[in-house]
């Protein structure tokens, strides 16, 4: 395999594609849509994983006191919380602090004012730090039993819920991704089948004069790989742009703890390019095997 031969294959492949522009363009677009969804899916799974990890690494839980408790009563609860086993520290958060924090995170000070006037609907809150995050479940259970504790917020609940959602998305996503890959492979193999048909006379001549198999198949294999590659390039560009855009948005919601990660998107792009070329090669290989007898 030398450069001259590869140059010839690419040249022929481009001619094949130019000969069948409509089919080639729609194949590239379909491949790019498929790969875009694949890429978006991978990024979602990666980030959901990172998010869940940071949440489950938290060693804190929040205890909310009944809203009708006075500050005095609330402080009495604090002593009981401190007595729970494995509690390392308990931090008190007043109604005002809780309100301020929420407004600084989510904004909307005006609306709160309109809705509640000077009343503060936030409960008194204690932040408990456990000695390590495996103890949180037990601490949470004990804290819930204390009188005056209205609710214990525990990252693990959120983590469990999220993990459930992510798992469902993952299974559904894998099915969708497989279907999309199959569609892309099918379309590429159909495109190659059409170019094989268009060039059947040339192929016949090549066989009779004794062209090597690689010479006969090379241009078609190259066409398929080029179609897949172009689809991957289009999807990568669109994906990188929408990734940038959504990460900028996500950064505004600090709670999500996400930010633009160049390495992450670079990895996904490389993966898409490889998948595109692979899908293209496989699609054309299938057509060649089926329609090109030697």
């Amino acid at each position, binding site marked *: 395999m030398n450069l001259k*031969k590869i140059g010839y294959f690419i040249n022929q492949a481009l001619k094949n594609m130019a000969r069948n522009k409509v089919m080639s363009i729609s194949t590239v677009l379909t491949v790019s849509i498929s790969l875009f969804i694949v890429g978006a899916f991978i990024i979602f799974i990666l980030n959901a994983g990172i998010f869940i990890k940071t949440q489950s690494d938290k060693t804190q839980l929040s205890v909310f006191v009944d809203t009708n408790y006075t500050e005095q009563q609330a402080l009495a609860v604090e002593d009981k919380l401190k007595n729970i086993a494995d509690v390392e520290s308990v931090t008190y958060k007043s109604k005002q602090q809780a309100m301020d924090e929420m407004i600084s995170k989510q904004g909307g000070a005006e609306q709160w004012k309109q809705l509640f006037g000077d009343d503060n609907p936030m409960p008194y809150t204690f932040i408990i730090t456990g000695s390590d995050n495996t103890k949180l479940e037990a601490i949470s259970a004990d804290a819930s039993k204390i009188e005056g504790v209205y609710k214990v917020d525990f990252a693990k609940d959120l983590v469990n819920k999220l993990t459930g959602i992510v798992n469902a998305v993952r299974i559904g996503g894998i099915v969708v991704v497989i279907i999309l890959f199959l569609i892309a492979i099918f379309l590429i193999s159909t495109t190659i089948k059409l170019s094989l048909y268009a060039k059947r*006379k*040339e192929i*016949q*001549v*090549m*066989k*009779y*004069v*004794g*062209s*090597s*198999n690689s*010479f*006969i198949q090379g241009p078609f294999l190259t066409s398929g790989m080029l179609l897949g590659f172009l689809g991957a390039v289009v999807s990568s560009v669109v994906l990188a742009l929408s990734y940038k855009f959504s990460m900028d948005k996500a950064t505004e919601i600090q709670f999500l703890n996400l930010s633009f990660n160049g390495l992450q998107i670079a990895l996904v792009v490389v993966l898409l390019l490889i998948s595109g070329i692979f899908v293209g090669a496989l699609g054309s290989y299938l057509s060649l095997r089926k329609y090109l007898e*030697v």
Partner: protein
Amino acid sequence: MNQPAIVRLENVTKVYGNKTIGLDHVTTNIHKGEFVFLIGASGAGKSTFLKLLFREEKPTSGKIYVGNKNISLLKAKELNILRKNIGVVFQDFRLLEDRTAYENIAYAMEVLGYSKKDIIDRVPKILKKVGMIHRQDHYPQQLSGGEQQRIAIGRAIINSPKILLADEPSGNVDPSTAVEIMDIFKEINSVGTTIIMATHDRFIVDQLAKRVLELKKGKITRDQEGGRYTYES
């Protein structure tokens, strides 16, 4: 004949998928430089004989040797080597309609990996050899049957093959053109190329007086040097 056999068939039978018999236990030797006519009624197995030689079809049983190689055992990858050494010409020419005479021959060289320089060098020589240099820029549609056949012959000899197979090469041309086409084959044969030609053309067989292999229902019924189309003792 003291020349070594370049083509050898040993008990070759070809049964097609639908149980039709193409060749029936055929054994024969063809030597280097021979000119052999395959004759026989329609369906006798002439095309089958030729197709087996360049492995368009595989024998059902028996062995076929081309230049000492059992071609049934060739792997797909080695097949092109066999075909490079065998030129083929068909009754219907099989030229590429969207390419000129020149381009048809150049294309065959291109797909064999010849360099541009070799192509520019060799194509005119081949066109001269088949007497078509003056029509090199014409498309097949602009050429007569005989002229198209000349181009097809030119394409078949780009590799200077040792064997040239022709399946009714004069079947689509008038008698006088057929004679001209035969002159090209004779010339190719005169430099040592083995020619095996299936034909229904009585006039040509009689005039050239070469070896005749007559087939009937897949069997060889006559093998005669300097034979005529119809057997007479």
